């Protein structure tokens, strides 16, 4: 019976049925049973009629039927039998009877279709049967079937030639949550779009008959038959690809790769992220991002990542729209996002939409899932070092839902167990993060969402100092559909990052050192479908920064530390943007945008002025001018251009071109190889200019084997201006005149990224190879110091060759095997060119900056994902992840250094994971 019902459930989506079978022509039934099981009842009914019954036996095991009927039609018998029970039935023309629990089968067609159509056997529109899960009655047909012809606009006898705009929302049938980034397209002519963050889409097509395809990761691909007369709306529900029931076909963004105009966009859903083997077995969002071409990191345990030659502070990391300043826990070992609540991530490396700005290199959007609007569910994961939990469910069914996730580590007690000799007894490391998202559907045109994020880290790195840091974010979003052409999102929120380090070992020098950044913002983003060829994006956003650049205060009564509190900084960053997606022809699409950004550095602040044309050094300081609160000290502004074009040579082959310019008004100050726990941010001010970057890129995209294999080649050339580098011995923390320690550097980055992706089938994954260079140059004669004689030198994360293989092989429905192989050139380091004897010891004499490289990096990780049994009805579903990190045990250098020991210089290479490291992780879903 199980198999039968499965087939039928699938069949429901493919074939049409009429409900409420004509009772008049059915044979009459006479029956007298007591306390019968459903099987018994069905046996009786099938014996007396020619109807076939389909149902899930386990759903009916508690049903007992007592019934006495005499010559009644089948429908009446079933109505009687299921009275006051949660069971429903439906009968179709082929004499099939479907029995369902808690789900009613809707037997009438949606409102717009005249009721008379139902009875006409000659009607070309197949009759339909929809699972009634979305109870909200609407004026637009909620499409659920693929063979029905939807008539959009007012029907006319003859289709008027021209174009018309179809808009609507795409929702998940499971919980009505909007489906973001679904590809919506017709194949002939090739016209496509994607749904926005509220599931809204708008597509302009020639009038007439079309087949509209809708594809989205993790959801069943579907299509709709359209007869487009004029502008109109169509809402579409996508069925979930239920992993526990069906063969999972991860189709991803397969066709949009060819069709979308933008380039350099990488998208990963949580399912793909989970397949990437990670340290300790917990799905790690940032580590998965690091496997993408063009994304690099200085070392395997370092905060942040570098995109196409950009510094780590040039990435805008957005969690549901909130800026996360520190995306890592424990200084880079773990990423700060709970995989249980994340839905997908999207990385923009090249074509950055005009609505984003403020960072030079990339935008990483991390979207969390909407809570289930139907029922309470949750999951938990237990690892050796971290555990996580999430619950979700309706607050008000079908209207308001929440999702709450938390994660923590429990390592301190383990350190306590270590023997005294290990010197790790005093090590402390703990962190946690919390996420909350509440979604509320006010009505079909207004959606509200609230996201909260909180993370906290505490560690002493086996030193006397305790390092604390944390993020705190809150975002409120209101998405409104004004009309079928205008859609808007209003966002407001506050982001905060702060650290607080202290040491009290030496009572006289005991201190507490803190830094904090806070930003509050307001954004309005709109999409307007002007006409069939033009879709406009426009909006306005403004961001108010408040920075506590640093404080250093005594701790305890004996401390003689003089409190030092740097002047707080404040600034306003505003931007206005307008973008137009212009469909010139089915083959050629253009997307151009202009963002105009304005930055005001505001008082109160005492600003140092320096003699013109002299190095900004303390002895060249002329004066210090005080500006009152709210007074504009310095304004920077300028246009940022965004341009992308796509030309589809064939349906499977396209060429894209992109150009964009970016401005960045905030800088992270770090002169260490990895981002250190004391690194701070600085706003551009009267003495420190904003960073400026431009990128031109070209890409070729070709899909093979029915879009199941995607290949792409992208090349780019990038220029950086006024990137901040540091003078020798620069003091970056607690420096009241920071401008004297930084120098403006220029840079260039270029590279080619090759990628082959197979996202479906038993074996899936991707292979990528990147050749890229990032070179910096400091040749400003007024800087007081010139690095490497003003020649180009490689940046810390310049790793020319980079190869990544991620593969996942599904051994069975329950077991899959993942591999991650990564190779890259060693990063550049500054090495000694000689030695000298001073103060009783040989000491190293360093040569040109970054003139040597550490040995190449190579690592292989394996993991096996084992799902528990797939019985639908059980309290919990569980799965195991077991694996090995760095299988080959290669001693990849993390850092190298030269130090004088007992009077001689020794070089050392430090490896963090010098052996294969096994891990295990247990996950429960409930």
């Amino acid at each position, binding site marked *: 019976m199980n198999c039968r019902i499965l087939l039928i459930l699938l069949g429901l989506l493919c074939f049409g049925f009429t409900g409420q079978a004509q009772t008049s022509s059915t044979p009459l039934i006479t029956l007298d049973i007591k306390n019968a099981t459903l099987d018994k009842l069905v046996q009786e009914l099938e014996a007396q009629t020619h109807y076939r019954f389909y149902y899930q036996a386990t759903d009916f095991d508690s049903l007992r039927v007592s019934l006495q009927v005499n010559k009644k039609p089948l429908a009446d018998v079933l109505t009687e039998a299921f009275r006051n029970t949660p069971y429903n039935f439906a009968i179709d023309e082929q004499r099939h009877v479907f029995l369902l629990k808690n789900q009613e089968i809707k037997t009438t067609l949606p409102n717009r279709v005249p009721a008379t159509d139902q009875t006409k056997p000659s009607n070309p529109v197949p009759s339909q049967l929809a699972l009634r899960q979305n109870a909200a009655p609407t004026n637009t047909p909620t499409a659920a079937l693929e063979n029905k012809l939807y008539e959009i606009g007012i029907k006319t006898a003859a289709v008027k030639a021209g174009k018309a705009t179809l808009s609507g929302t795409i929702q998940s049938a499971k919980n009505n949550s909007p489906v973001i980034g679904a590809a919506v397209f017709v194949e002939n002519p090739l016209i496509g779009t994607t749904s926005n963050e509220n599931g809204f889409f708008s597509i302009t097509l020639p009038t007439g008959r079309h087949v509209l395809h809708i594809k989205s990761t993790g959801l069943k691909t579907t299509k709709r038959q359209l007869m487009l007369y004029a502008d109109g709306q169509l809402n579409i529900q996508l069925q979930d690809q239920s992993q526990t029931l069906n063969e999972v076909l991860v189709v991803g963004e397969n066709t949009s790769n060819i069709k979308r105009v933008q380039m350099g966009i990488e998208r990963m859903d949580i399912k793909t992220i989970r397949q990437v083997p990670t340290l300790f077995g917990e799905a790690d969002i940032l580590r998965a991002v690091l496997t993408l071409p063009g994304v690099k990191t200085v070392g395997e345990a370092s905060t942040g990542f570098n995109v196409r030659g950009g510094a780590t502070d040039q990435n805008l990391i957005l969690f549901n729209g909130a800026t996360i300043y520190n995306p890592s826990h424990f200084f880079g070992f773990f990423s700060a996002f709970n995989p249980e609540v994340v839905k997908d991530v999207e990385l923009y490396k090249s074509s950055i939409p005009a609505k984003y700005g403020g960072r030079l290199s990339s935008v990483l959007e991390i979207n969390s899932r909407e809570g289930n609007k139907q029922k309470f569910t949750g999951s938990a994961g237990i690892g050796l070092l971290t555990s996580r939990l999430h619950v979700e469910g309706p607050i008000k069914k079908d209207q308001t839902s929440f999702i709450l996730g938390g994660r923590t580590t429990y390592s301190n007690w383990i350190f306590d*167990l270590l023997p005294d000799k290990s010197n790790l007894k005093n090590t402390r490391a703990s962190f946690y993060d919390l996420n909350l998202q509440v979604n509320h559907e006010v009505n079909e045109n207004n959606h509200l969402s609230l996201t909260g994020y909180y993370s906290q880290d505490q560690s002493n790195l086996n030193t006397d100092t305790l390092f604390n840091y944390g993020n705190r974010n809150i975002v409120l979003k209101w998405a409104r559909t004004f009309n079928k052409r205008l859609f808007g999102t209003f966002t407001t929120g506050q982001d905060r990052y702060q650290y607080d380090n202290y040491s009290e070992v030496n009572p*006289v020098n005991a201190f507490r050192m803190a830094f904090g950044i806070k930003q509050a913002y307001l954004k309005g983003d709109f999409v307007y479908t002007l006409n069939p060829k033009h879709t406009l994006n426009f909006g306005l956003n403004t961001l108010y920064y408040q920075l506590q650049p640093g404080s250093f205060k005594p701790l305890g009564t004996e401390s003689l530390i*003089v409190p030092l509190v740097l002047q707080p900084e404040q600034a306003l960053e505003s931007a206005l943007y307008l973008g137009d997606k212009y469909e010139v022809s089915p083959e050629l699409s253009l997307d151009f945008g202009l963002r105009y950004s304005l930055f005001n550095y505001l008082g109160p602040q005492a600003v140092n002025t320096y003699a013109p044309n002299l190095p900004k050094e303390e002895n060249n300081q002329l004066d210090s001018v005080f500006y009152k609160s709210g007074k504009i000290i310095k304004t920077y502004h300028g246009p940022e251009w965004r341009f992308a074009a796509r030309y589809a040579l064939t349906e499977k082959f396209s060429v894209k071109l992109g150009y964009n310019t970016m401005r960045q008004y905030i800088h992270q100050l770090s002169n260490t190889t990895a981002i250190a726990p004391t690194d701070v941010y600085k706003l551009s001010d009267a003495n420190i200019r904003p960073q400026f970057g431009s990128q031109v890129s070209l890409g070729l995209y070709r899909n093979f084997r029915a879009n199941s294999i995607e290949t792409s080649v992208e090349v780019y050339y990038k220029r950086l201006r006024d990137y901040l580098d540091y003078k020798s011995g620069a003091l970056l923390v607690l420096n009241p005149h920071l401008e004297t320690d930084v120098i403006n550097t220029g840079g260039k980055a270029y590279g080619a990224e090759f990628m082959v992706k197979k996202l479906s089938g038993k074996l899936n994954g991707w292979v990528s190879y990147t050749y890229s260079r990032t070179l910096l140059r400091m040749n400003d004669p007024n800087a007081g*110091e010139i690095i490497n004689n003003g020649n180009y030198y490689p940046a810390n994360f310049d790793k020319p060759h980079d190869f990544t293989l991620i593969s996942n092989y599904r051994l069975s429905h329950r077991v899959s095997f993942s591999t991650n192989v990564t190779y890259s050139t060693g990063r550049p380091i500054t090495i000694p060119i000689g030695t*000298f004897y*001073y103060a009783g010891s040989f000491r190293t*004499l*360093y040569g040109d900056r970054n003139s040597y490289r550490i040995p190449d990096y190579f690592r292989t990780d394996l993991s096996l994902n084992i799902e528990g049994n797939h019985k639908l009805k059980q309290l919990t579903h569980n799965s195991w992840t077991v694996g090995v990190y760095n299988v080959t045990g290669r001693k990849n250098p993390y850092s190298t*250094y030269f130090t004088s020991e007992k009077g001689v210089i020794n070089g050392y290479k430090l490896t963090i994971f010098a052996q294969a490291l096994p891990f295990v992780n247990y996950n429960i879903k409930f």
Partner: protein
Amino acid sequence: MTKRGFFYLISGVWLSFWLLACKERFEPNLPEQATGYLVVEGLIITGPGQTKFKLTRSLPLGATRNSIVPETRALLQIEGEGSNIFPLAEKGPGLYAADNLSLTNGQQYRLRIKTAAGKEYISDFTEAKKTPPIDSITWQQENSGIQIFVNTHNPQNNTRYYQWDYEETWEYYSLSDTDFKYEDGRVVERAPSEHTYRCWGKGGSVNLLLGSSAKLSQDVIYQQPLTYIPPTSIKLSYQYSIRVKQYALTRMAYEYLQLMRKNTETTGSFFDPQPSELKGNIRSVSDPAEPVIGYVSACDVTEKRIFIQRREIGDWDYTLICQS
């Protein structure tokens, strides 16, 4: 798995996570570069004591002490703000000194060097600073070894930057008596008066020892670590003495030496700054771009010496066993 078993598994993994980290020798195959930059080490001592400068040249990596080439036959002189000139004499190969110059604290001095090859180098003028006396040298037992600290303060609150170096001497006894000696090609018995088994070892600072009270409300250096004597060291087998010299630095000199220290004595922590260029206050007169290593400071010197007896410390594991 039993609860206990699981528990051990977890601790084992955390442990291995830390122990997995490993440190190996790294010997890059570096191109030989002839640097040969002038290295100037020394201080202008204003009060009583010897002003001493050592001139050497930088060497290829991997050089040993035997390969140090002193810069000989140079002419060195200290110049005061007026036209006061104090010549230094070459006391040994590359070693130039003058005793008791009696300069004035608060005045500006500089060093001028003329090498035998005829090149001339000059330092910036630097203010001679007064060094406050050392308050105390203290020690305490830490992790079974002995940690030695220095304490000092200046009630005028104007020293702020300090450097120390030290000499250490320890008395120890040889494992066996020397009953015989070699004389005229023959082994002969020593007379009882010639029996030697009491020895003295000598050492000195090999690290740059720097301290600052710039961030404190008072000019106080409290428990500044100087050196650590590891457990079982022979230095404390009987009696140990440390003589610490203290020097006052200018902020610039302190920053220069601090940078040199960071560049050359880092321990490979994840968050060490990258090595950076050293720029001292000595330059070539004819070629200002020529790198010269060293920083010339002027101050007087204060010193203090303490003794530590073996019996003053708790269990000291050092025992006289043959360690051949």
